[in-house]
């Protein structure tokens, strides 16, 4: 049996991470967290989480970067905003979850072939190319990249949806697509300039 120290030392914290979270959009009020647990209580996904939202709030503001970014909770969050409505300190918890996801993807803290970042990537590629999402094509592309076998399992359902006229064959497109590319390029440039 391997014995591991469970309690962390203060020196293992990453103050830069704590600094980052309280300066990110929506994180301004994280220091006000009372640890009351209303977020975890109202969260429909906390039953499945390794760290509940309350614990994540505390771990992040104290700078436990590894624990937070490798926690599966940030991927379980469906962004339903139940926690935010309940929070007595009006902390933008859902938004912090967005920030943590973004950071975890940047620093590659996620399992291999994990569907969420793959879907996000395919989604943004499609928006760049067409300006709109065609769900049928998006689903197809995600399945191709996460496991073709799952696609076969879904074919019966896909056919039903197709018959019901719910799967588009032709992709939806914005007519002035150059506007979308210029828009996205401009955001990238400003982000770089402001180091955001």
């Amino acid at each position, binding site marked *: 049996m391997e014995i591991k120290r469970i309690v962390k030392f203060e020196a293992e914290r990453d103050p830069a991470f704590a600094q980052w979270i309280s300066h990110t959009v929506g994180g301004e009020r994280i220091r006000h967290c009372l640890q009351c647990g209303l977020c975890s209580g109202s969260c429909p996904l906390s039953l499945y989480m390794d760290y509940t939202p309350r614990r994540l709030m505390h771990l992040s503001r104290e700078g436990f970067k590894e624990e937070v970014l490798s926690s599966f909770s940030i991927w379980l969050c469906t962004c339903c905003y139940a926690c935010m409505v309940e929070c007595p300190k009006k902390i933008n918890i859902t938004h912090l979850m967005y920030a943590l996801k973004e950071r975890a993807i940047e620093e590659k803290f996620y399992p291999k072939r994990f569907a969420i970042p793959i879907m996000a990537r395919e989604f943004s590629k499609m928006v760049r190319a067409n300006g709109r999402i065609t*769900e049928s094509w998006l689903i197809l592309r995600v399945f191709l990249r996460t496991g073709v076998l799952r696609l076969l399992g879904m074919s019966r359902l896909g056919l039903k949806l197709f018959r019901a006229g719910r799967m588009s064959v032709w992709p939806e497109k914005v007519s002035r697509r150059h506007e979308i590319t210029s828009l996205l390029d401009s955001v990238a440039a400003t982000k770089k300039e402001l180091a955001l």
Partner: protein
Amino acid sequence: MRYLYYPGCSLKGTGRAYEESLLAVFRALDVEVEELADWNCCGATTYMSVDELTSYALAGRNLALAERQQMDVIAPCAACYLVLSKTQRYIRDYPDIKLIVSRALAAIGLEYKDRVKVRHPLDVLYHDVGVKAVAARVKRPLKGLKVAPYYGCQIVRPYATFDDQRNPISMDRLLEACGASIVYYPLKTRCCGGSQKGTLPEVGLDLIRYLLVEAHKEHADVLATVCPLCQFNLDVFQEEATNRHEALPIPVLYFSQLMGLALGFGPKELGLQRCLVPLGPVLARKELAYA
């Protein structure tokens, strides 16, 4: 009453029946709508959660396009409604976001002055049209039909002011005006799991199952939804989610499809054939006929 209409991607794809039925309801109630020309994807939860700043610019283009027409813009999809409202709020609150969005819009010759109002169809139907006006137009009351009203998360949370965030009632009242009975449904604003069914299926199916079983417990005949993703999850994955459960198949409809039936439209006009769990048997049981 004239409004701009921002359909969003789902209403042109898997949620086509929402568009069909909503536009029919608007027609019947003299709500004139014009589709926002050349609208783009709002970014939805997917973009927002991985590239937040970019998503504000995407939503910003739609807001700027809408603003030029000087009408309120109706966004029926929950994600679109939330993203557009949130973007407006964040542009006001965060100078960095404002800068990013205004530069990006300037690059394509647009400007956003914060002068457009984003509205949800429930808001428009409940506040602008009004329950009385709806009741006055009902041709075939949905008598005896027990409806579980399911709002989901992103319509009323976190910014909407047109209804209560914990216990919204606008859809309840609108459907009552159509003659339906509303059952007690405490999970009305609980999350359906969103895209979780695609990414983490075990968890997604659990969330879907809770909602269906609860509606079944309250003896609801149908579930009424306001969001294309909620409708998709509860309808399309119903069989899979309730596989080992006693829950009967329960049709999951857009609230606008139910309203449309009461207002006298036929099943095809409301896209009822697009629901995988058919409504027909329920209507037959309740002796409610189509036109």
